[in-house]
Every structure is written in C-alpha cells, then in structure tokens.
C-alpha cells in the first residue's frame, strides 16, 4: 500500500513537470493535436466516400463502422497519452546510452519510463474517438442497458494495456539490439486492423489479430457485445485476459532485457 502511494506521488510530480513543459511550448501542443486529428479526419473522409458508393460494408452499416472505428481510438489515445515514452526507448534512449540514468534511480525502471512523459498530441485521437462514438450511438439499432454502458467503460483500461503491453515487449528488444523503434512500429501498425470490423479480413488475418497480436480485441470484439449483445464471456473476457498476458509478458521481457543491457555510447 505504501509502495503504491509512493508511486502515485512520483506520478503526480512527473505530470506536473510535463504540464509546465507543455505550457512553455503551446504552439507544439496545437500542432500535435491538430496533426493527429487530421490523420483521423483523412480516414473518415475515406469512409465517407466509400459509403457513398455502397449500402453497407460486408453487412455493417456506416454507423456501426464509425462506432467500431471510434471505439478503437479511445484506448489507443489513452495509451498514447500516458505511455508514449516507450517509443523513445526503442528509437534513441538505449542507443545513445541515455538509459543508464533510469538504472541509477530508486524507482522501478519500467514505471519510471512510463510515467516520465505524457504526449498531449494523443488528445487528437482521444477526442475524435469519443466524438465518433457519441455521434454514432443515437443512430445505432442497439438496445442500451446499464450493463452495456458499464462494460464499455470498464473495458477501456484493460484495452489500453493491450497497446501498452505490445509496446513494452517490442521496446524491450532494444536492450538486446540497441534499437527497436521500427520493431515497435511494425507491431503497433497491426492496430490499423482494429479500425474496421474483423469480418472483412480473411481467416488467417482474423486469427492473427485475435490470438497473436490481438488488436481485434481492442474494438471489434467488445463492440460485438456492446452492439449486439453477443457472447459476453469471449467478447469481454478475452480482451481482459489478453491485456493481462501482454502486460505481464511485457514486464517480464523488460526486466530480462535490463539484465542483458549493456550501456552504449561513451
């Protein structure tokens, strides 16, 4: 208990530092948020144009597709907001020998890396996600009940950890290879598959994004339950299980990596 309290305190101090830094560079903040907003906008234009040509996408209505798309952005945005620092581990920190600083401090290294920075750009994704979910909900033919709404909110932290877990595992590769930025990039790109209903992919891809790099669990399967009330055990249970497995593996691989880590640079 005392340990958790201490961690929360450290977290708060780091956050305060980050906000100070952000206030210093307000222009950056606007550029980043608008940038990520535009990325999503461009994808939406794509959806909008193709739905002008077809009545539904493999049986999914435009509102359902927008709902799944929006739902995928919320946990992605949260992970991006809080745990973006893992990318720098993969791209620069280890390679430049800057990782040593974490080893000299009396905090768990992974915890330190995770809370050290926040990435305000992520608001572009998060706000867009919330907006899309809100915009699509009134037009969906879904019977809403308290349980579905609670399920949606309850799932978000777990789904966020699927993203963080994948990033932690792939970032740890840098401890052996010095540089793993593009390894993170490759695996993270699998989340692109989460934007659309998984039924549009073939069996092989479906299996990969459900069981191996399980980004279909981040939006499609929870949405199946929320929209249609199908199979709550699998649709909600699997994402929770996957987040535990991935984050657990992430923590293990990270600490293994630190043991293998040799400082680089001079």
């Amino acid at each position: 208990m005392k340990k958790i309290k201490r961690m929360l305190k450290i977290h708060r101090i780091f956050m305060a530092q980050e906000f100070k830094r952000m206030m210093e560079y307000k222009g950056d903040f606007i550029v980043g948020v608008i940038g990520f907003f535009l990325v999503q906008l461009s994808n939406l234009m794509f959806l909008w144009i193709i739905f002008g040509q077809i009545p539904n996408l493999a049986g999914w209505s435009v509102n359902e597709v927008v709902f799944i798309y929006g739902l995928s952005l919320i946990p992605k945005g949260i992970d991006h907001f809080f745990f973006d620092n893992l990318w720098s581990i993969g791209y620069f920190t280890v390679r430049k020998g800057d990782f040593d600083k974490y080893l000299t401090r009396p905090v768990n290294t992974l915890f330190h890396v995770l809370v050290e920075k926040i990435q305000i750009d992520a608001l572009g994704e998060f706000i867009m996600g919330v907006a899309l979910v809100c915009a699509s909900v009134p037009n969906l033919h879904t019977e809403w009940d308290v349980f579905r709404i609670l399920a949606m909110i309850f799932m978000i932290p777990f789904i966020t950890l699927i993203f963080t877990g994948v990033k932690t595992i792939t970032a740890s590769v840098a401890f052996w290879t010095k540089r793993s930025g593009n390894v993170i990039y490759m695996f993270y790109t699998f989340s692109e598959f989460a934007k659309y209903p998984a039924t549009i992919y073939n069996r092989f891809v479906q299996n990969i994004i459900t069981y191996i790099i399980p980004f279909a669990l981040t939006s499609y399967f929870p949405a199946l339950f929320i929209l249609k009330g199908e199979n709550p055990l699998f649709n909600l249970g699997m994402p929770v299980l996957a987040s535990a497995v991935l984050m657990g593996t992430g923590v293990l691989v990270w600490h293994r990596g630190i043991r293998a880590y040799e400082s680089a640079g001079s």
Partner: protein
Amino acid sequence: MMKRKLKIYLPFVNAGMQEVATYRVNWIFFMLGEALSCFVTYFIWAAVYSSGSKESMNGFTMPQMIVYIVLMFLTGTIIASDGAFVVGEEIRDGSIIMRMIKPVSYNATFLFQELGNKLPTEIAIAVPMIITVEIIRTVMSGMFEFNVLRLVLYILSCALAYLINFYFNICFGFIAFVIKYLWGANMMKNVIVGFLSGMVIPLSFLPEAIEKVFLFLPFSSLNYTPVMIYMGKYGGTELLYCVGLQIFWVLFFFGLSKLLWKASVKRLSAQGG
C-alpha cells in the same frame, strides 16, 4: 566542369549507401509496417467491391484497385524524401551554419546523399513488386498487359515526382523557423499530402470539381501521375500534359527552395558554437 562536380558530389552518394547498410534490419521492420497498412487497405477495398453491386467504381475494377494499391505503395517509397526533417533539424540546432560555410551546394549534397541512400533499396523492392503487380494483373484479368514503354514512362515520371518531392520537402523544412515541433509539423504535412496525392483514395472517387483542383495541385504529380501512367489510364495529350505539369512543379519548387535559402541566410541567427 562536369567532372569536377561529380568528384565533389559522388562521395555523398557513397556515404548515403553506407548509411543504409548500417541500419538494414531496422529498415526491413519499417517496410514491413508500411506493407501491413497496405494489406488493411486491400481488405477494405475487397469488402467494398463485394458489398457494392457494380463491377467497376469510378473507373477502377477490383483487380485494378489492387494494382493501384501496390503501385501507390511502391511509388511512395521510391519518391520518399527526408529533406523536411533534415533541414528542419539543422535549422533548429543551428548546424545549418556548417552548410553555409562550405563551398558546395546545400541542396545538391542532400540530393546525392539521399540518392545513395535510396538506389540500392529501391531497386531491391521495385523489381519484385513490379513482377508481383504483373502476376496479380495477369492472374486476375487473364491477360498479360505488361508494356515496356509504360514502364519506362513510369520510371521517368517517378524520377520527376522524386525531384518535386525532394524540393518541396526542402522548402517545407524551412517551416522550422516558425514551428519548433518538427515531428508534428511533418505528420500534418504527410496527412495532407497523402490525401491530396491519392494515397488515401484514388482521386477519381472525389467529386469532379475537387478532383480537377487536386489534379492541378503539385501533390497529384507525386504519386498519382506515375501510377496512372503505369496503369495505362493516361494516353496521348493527357500524358504529355501530366508530365509537363510535373516538370513545371519541379522547376517551381527548385526555384522556391533557392529563394527560401537566400531568405534564410538573412534571417538565421544561430546560437552558441
């Protein structure tokens, strides 16, 4: 004169080649990531075509759409240029000053270094991808449509597109005088250019008035024109017009980059050193 120039700039080509050899594995993972996005695009289009009743949409059949996706990906990697980032970074940390005191052209050193960076890798991807495109096309449409002339025109058009992109990115790099967050600025640029150049959706899917505007803008000269040429969508005068437009934009951005360079020499105040 020519010989002297070559002697100055060839070492930059060499340096570029060595750079890419050092980070080969990293590069492979990056390309795999890019290819994944391509697969997502493929699946969404496959779903679109099987959900719609029409065989051809805005001039594209499903096999043509696949060819379009693969060629867009290939063209994108061929013409990719890092200039905006490098120039921006040098402006931000002041190392641009080193370029000013050296008796070589700033842009040319870059161009040759990047060419050295790209040549080996691009040839390594382009050949198998062109073969793949031809196999897909032959299998799906039942006809062998490979045309040497079109391939030659495609390569020529790609070269022009690369030069447009190169000088455009150099120009864009000067934005570092205004925006310090280069990564964000670059991302913004990439999204907008991606949409305007047909990376997201073929321009013929857009409303006609918008399509016309986009076709004139420099960005359709980047990916869209070479791909359309390879696919045989442009013939005769249209082809001449599009290549002419490409040449115009090369000259335009070349001129603009020179102007910006002159202006920045006046504006620059580097600290420290």
